[in-house]
Every structure is written in structure tokens, then in C-alpha cells.
């Protein structure tokens, strides 16, 4: 028996992938995110937890500038990906989103074939020169999403014909097809049954070997299972950010303790 396995679970790297400093987000008059500083490490799963409406999804969407699509939303502060400010005027959000992929709460495969779903991203970003290369990218992405074995004989079947867990893994395959460096996941398992959830969580654990993963979840048990670092948000503020085991066994802030033990909503 190998008792050295504990080290696998700890934070493997200390490189910081995304640095956010003093980030504020306003929806019109509402101050949704208040002065958040957080460093997302590389090749690690970071979880954002907190009660409903605490701003964790809003903050997640800042990381790939999806908030740009909302007219009333205004973001101030500094967010750097690999030391480049993502809100710089020269940055094209479209290009940013190829590097920072996103998986949503409800599985939303395109109503096309499985192949086309995965191939869409590489096609529009010009990642493949010919059909053979595209086939390779599709296979690689489906393998990384632990879906290849189940769908390799029916790549032309519609993506919407898969089960919920498979659809979500298809969305993950689609997101990794553009070779992102960061994967953002907004409550990826909330629409799935427990077995599918466990499969996706296992997949997330495998993905952290290649990508930095940030996952927003309203289930703190999921954050406990899947992440190495956890950030607790409350009313728009980042209350505590630390190693997951420490947060769940001896949190420092009493608000964190209240939330985790189920004493506040």
C-alpha cells in the first residue's frame, strides 16, 4: 500500500495562472462584487462556494469576459491572465474565450452532431488545417472528456440525443477542443443525477493535470470532494481563500465556519 499518495492530492504547483486584484462589478446601481483579490493557481481545481446571490457566478464570468454581453454590467479592477490584463483595450474577448473555456450549468450541446459539436471551436479558430487534423482534435478532446469510448461509433448522432451526464461531458470536450489554458465551470453538475455527477467530478480531477480549473458550486460537499483550493464568497466579498482541507476542518473566518456547518443560508 502506498501511503505516499497524500501528496498527489495537495496543491501541485505554486504558479499563479490568474491574478485578480481589487475587482468590483456593478450591475447598474447594484454593487455585486466588492474589492475581490484572488490568485488562481495553475493546474489546480479552485472552487468558489457561497450562498445564492453571493456573486460567485458573476466573478467567474469576469474571468472570460462573458459579462461583456450584459449591457448594464461594469467591471473595474485588475484581472491578469499570465500577467496580461484581460480587460486591456487591445484584447479581443473572442480570442480570450478560446484560451479560457467555459462549461455551463445546464448541458447545452449545439443541436448538431457530436462531431460537429466538438469540431466547431477548432473550426472557427482555425486550429486544424485539414479534415484529418480535425478528426484527431475531435478524438483527443473526446478522450480527454472520458467520452470517446461511448460515442466513437456514432459521431454523427445528434449531440442532444445523449444522456445528461454524457451531454455535459460533451460540453467539456467541446470546451477543451480549443486547447484552453483555463476551464471555467459554472455549477456543471447541478442538472445531473448523482452517478453522472460523480463521473464528471472524477473527470475534473483528471483534467487538472492539464488545465487550471475554476468551478463554481452551490454544493460545498462537491467543493470538498473535487477542489484543492476553495474560496468562500459572501454578499459580494471574498471572505476566505485557502487549501480545501484546511477550510473544511479549521476555517479561519467565523463566517466561513457558519456557512460550512450549515448555520447560515
Amino acid at each position, binding site marked *: 500500500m502506498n501511503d505516499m499518495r497524500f501528496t498527489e492530492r495537495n496543491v501541485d504547483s505554486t504558479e499563479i495562472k490568474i491574478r485578480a486584484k481589487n475587482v468590483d462589478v456593478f450591475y447598474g446601481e447594484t454593487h455585486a462584487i466588492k474589492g475581490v483579490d484572488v490568485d488562481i493557481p495553475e493546474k489546480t481545481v479552485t472552487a468558489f462556494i457561497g450562498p445564492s446571490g453571493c456573486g460567485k457566478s458573476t466573478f467567474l464570468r469576469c474571468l*472570460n469576459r*462573458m459579462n461583456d*454581453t450584459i*449591457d448594464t454590467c461594469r467591471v473595474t479592477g485588475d484581472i491578469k491572465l499570465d500577467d496580461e490584463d484581460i480587460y486591456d483595450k487591445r484584447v479581443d474577448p*473572442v*480570442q*480570450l*474565450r*478560446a484560451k479560457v*473555456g*467555459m*462549461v*455551463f450549468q*445546464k448541458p*447545452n*450541446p*449545439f*443541436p448538431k452532431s457530436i462531431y460537429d459539436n466538438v469540431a*466547431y*471551436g477548432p473550426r*472557427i*479558430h482555425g486550429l486544424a488545417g485539414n479534415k484529418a487534423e480535425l478528426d484527431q482534435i475531435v478524438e483527443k478532446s473526446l478522450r480527454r472528456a472520458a467520452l470517446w469510448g461511448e460515442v466513437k461509433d456514432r459521431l454523427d448522432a445528434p449531440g*442532444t440525443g445523449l444522456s445528461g451526464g454524457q451531454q455535459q461531458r460533451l*460540453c467539456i470536450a*467541446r*470546451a477543451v477542443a*480549443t486547447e484552453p489554458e483555463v476551464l471555467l465551470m459554472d455549477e456543471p453538475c447541478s442538472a445531473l443525477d448523482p452517478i453522472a455527477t460523480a463521473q464528471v467530478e472524477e473527470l475534473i480531477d483528471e483534467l487538472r493535470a492539464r488545465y487550471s480549473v475554476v468551478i463554481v458550486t452551490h454544493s460545498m460537499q462537491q467543493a470538498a470532494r473535487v477542489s484543492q483550493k476553495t474560496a468562500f464568497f459572501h454578499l459580494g466579498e471574498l471572505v476566505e481563500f485557502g487549501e480545501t482541507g484546511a477550510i473544511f476542518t479549521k476555517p479561519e473566518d467565523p463566517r466561513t465556519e457558519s456557512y460550512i456547518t450549515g448555520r447560515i443560508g
Partner: protein
Amino acid sequence: MTDATSGDGTSQPPRKASLLELDARTKKRNAAEARFRTYGLVAVCAGLVALVVLMVSIVNNGAGAFSQTFVTLQVELPADRLDKSGNRNPDEMRAVSTFGYSPLIAAAVVRALEENGISIEGLSAKDAGGIISKEAPAQLRNFVLANPQTLDTTREFTFLANGRIDGYYKGRVTFASAEMDKNVSPAQLQLADALLEIGVLESKFNTLFFTSPDASGQRPEAAGLGVAIIGSLYMMLIVLALALPIGVAASIYLEEFAPKNRLTDLIEVNIANLAAVPSIVFGILGLAIFINFAGLPQSAPIVGGLVLTLMTLPTIIIATRASLKSVPPSIRQAALGIGASKMQSVFHHVLPLAAPGILTGTIIGLAQALGETAPLLLIGMVAFVREFPAGPPQGFFDPASALPVQVYNWTQRSDPAFVERASGAIIVLLVFLILMNAIAVLLRRRFERRW
């Protein structure tokens, strides 16, 4: 802790009502609901009855238009009468007008009688020729001019019978009315019967109804929908080519790209209002702008098409916006999340999913445009047009008619045969409309996806 409601504890608990007995309120409510259901049923039945009555009357009136009486004759084509110079030159042969040809036809009828040993009292040769439609000499002349080599032969021709003869077989004309009618005599009716017996005269399906152009009041039997169908077709093509791209593009812009401010709200309200504007107003607009200002030819499908485009645009825009709205935002988010630009997400994902709705809206818009009469009347498409317009695109500028206008036209004429033809045209129009709507429903069913 609960509040005990029974005060001193000595009163009896309320007797529980049995489920098996209905209380008064329930009975009243059930009665009201049953009454309401009856009203609904009565309303539906009334609607159905009205529909059935309408359909039956139209079909009764119009069914006759689809069959017509034809006479098959062997006609001699003597060269000495038709080609005076003997050169077989069509340009020279044109000098012989239809007056030269009608005696040939009368002669053919007489010969048919003689060959079969029929004689009818009081029937002159001219009368005998009179049972054939007045279109026939023109038809014969056109044939001979096109085929001069057929001179000096005897060929078989099928001619339309005269409108009154046709009316006789459809019950409009009787021997009694024929006595007083100057266009037909009882002797001619007898002749017709005789020819019917020998098989020279017969009633069959009238394809000419669809292919021949309109005819004058004297010749209802020759009147057809050919020009009207082509005119309507051209206009539909123009509407499709113009309204669909403009409408879809405007819709996409308004729905996806336009900022959500007061100006766009104003535009949206006005588009909805446009759909409610009476169609005759569009006719006046078309007259003022397209004919008076832009100088386009009157009565041309191009003008009709442009006016109908303006009328159909609001329908298409509204239908397209509804389809675009019905695409769930999760698809757009997914596309944006992968790094597609707004344009790419609209054209690659939203539009294909909205396509069935857009298509259905377009077809319904086209079906409505097909049946519009008022604006076309104002721009002059009510004229009597005999020549087929040329092929597109210059055919768009030739005068033409339209189906609903043709119906209006025919109902204005005095001959009862035109009433029958108008009803027939209505049937044709209805068939097209039903067909288009059925296609719309089919397409919607086929392409509807579930997400």
C-alpha cells in the same frame, strides 16, 4: 400550541359531509361548467356549419368551370382560299383574317352532319358553325400560319364549343330560354345533342382554364387563368426575393445587435402597427411612389410585387423575431463561451435553429399576399390582359393580371358563364392557399427540434 376553537368543550364536533353526496356549491359549479362547454361546442359547430356552407356553395358554383364542351372536327384547309399567292409565305398568308377561316369551320360541321346522316330542321350552315366558339377561327389561323405546309390537307382539330352550348350542358340554358336568346337557337341545341350522340361533341376536363389568357365578354368559354397565374407567380417571386432577405436581416439586426433603447422600442412598435394598416393604403402608396414618382409601368408585376413586399415585410419581421426569440439563450452562451463572435453565433447557431419558424412565417406571409386584391386594384392590375407576359426579368415589366383580381374582374361581367368561372378561379386560389399553408405546417413539423 394550537388554539382550541371549541369553547367549553361540550359542543358536538361538526358532522362530516359524505364524499358521495355533492354539496350545493359543487352542483352549481358543475352546471356552470357544463353550460360553458355547451356554448363552446355550439360556437364551434356554428363555425363549422358556416365553413361547410361556404365550401359547398363555392364548389357547386365553380366545379363546372373545370369541365368544358369540346367539338372535334375534320377541317379542310384549301390552299386557294388561304394562300392566295401560293408561296406558303406566312407573312403573306396573314392577309387572310379570321373571317376567312370561319367558313371552313362551319363547313366542317356541316360535313360532319352529312357524314352521319343527321339533319336538323331550321338549321343553316352559319348556325351550324355558330355552335363553335368564336375563338376557334383565331386558333385555326394561328395553326396554319405556324404550319404552312399543312395547306391542302384535312386535319382534325378540337375546338371549344360556344359558351351557350356549354351552358346548355351545365343547365344554364334550356330550350325555353334559347327561344329568347339571340346568341343561340333551339336548333343549335338540337345540333349539339346530335353531335354529342355521335361522339363529335364531348365534355371533358378543361385544361385551357389554367393555360389560356382571359377572353372577352363574348367568349366566356375561352376565358382562362393563364395570365393571372403567371402574374401572381411573378409577384410571389418578387415578394420572396425582396421581403425575405430584407425582413430577416432587419429582424436579426433588431433582435441581436441593436442596443436596447427608446429608439429601437419605437421601431418595434411601428413595425407591429404596420401589420395592421389596411391593405388599400399600401395600394395608394404604391400608386404614388412606384407609378407616379418612379415611373414604373402600370399593371406590371414589378409594381404589384413591390407593393405586396411592403405589405408582407411586417409579417415576416414579426415571425422572424418570434423565432429568434424562441432560440434558448443557452445556445448563444455556449457559442460565445467557445470563442465565437456575436455574428458567428447568430449565423452558425441561432439562424439555423430559427429557420423553420422563419420559413413558416414567410410562407404564411406569401399566402396572405397571394390573396390580396385591394392594393392591386389601385395600381391598375385590374386591366384586361390578353398576352402572356414575357419570361423574367423583363416579364416583370409587362402588364399582367393576378388571381384574386381576375376573380373580381369576372364577377363584374354580365354573362353567367363568367360567374361559374369566377367561382372556379376562387377554387383554384383556395387550393393554392391551402397547399401553401399545408407546406408551412409540414415544414414546421419536420424541422421542429426539441432541446
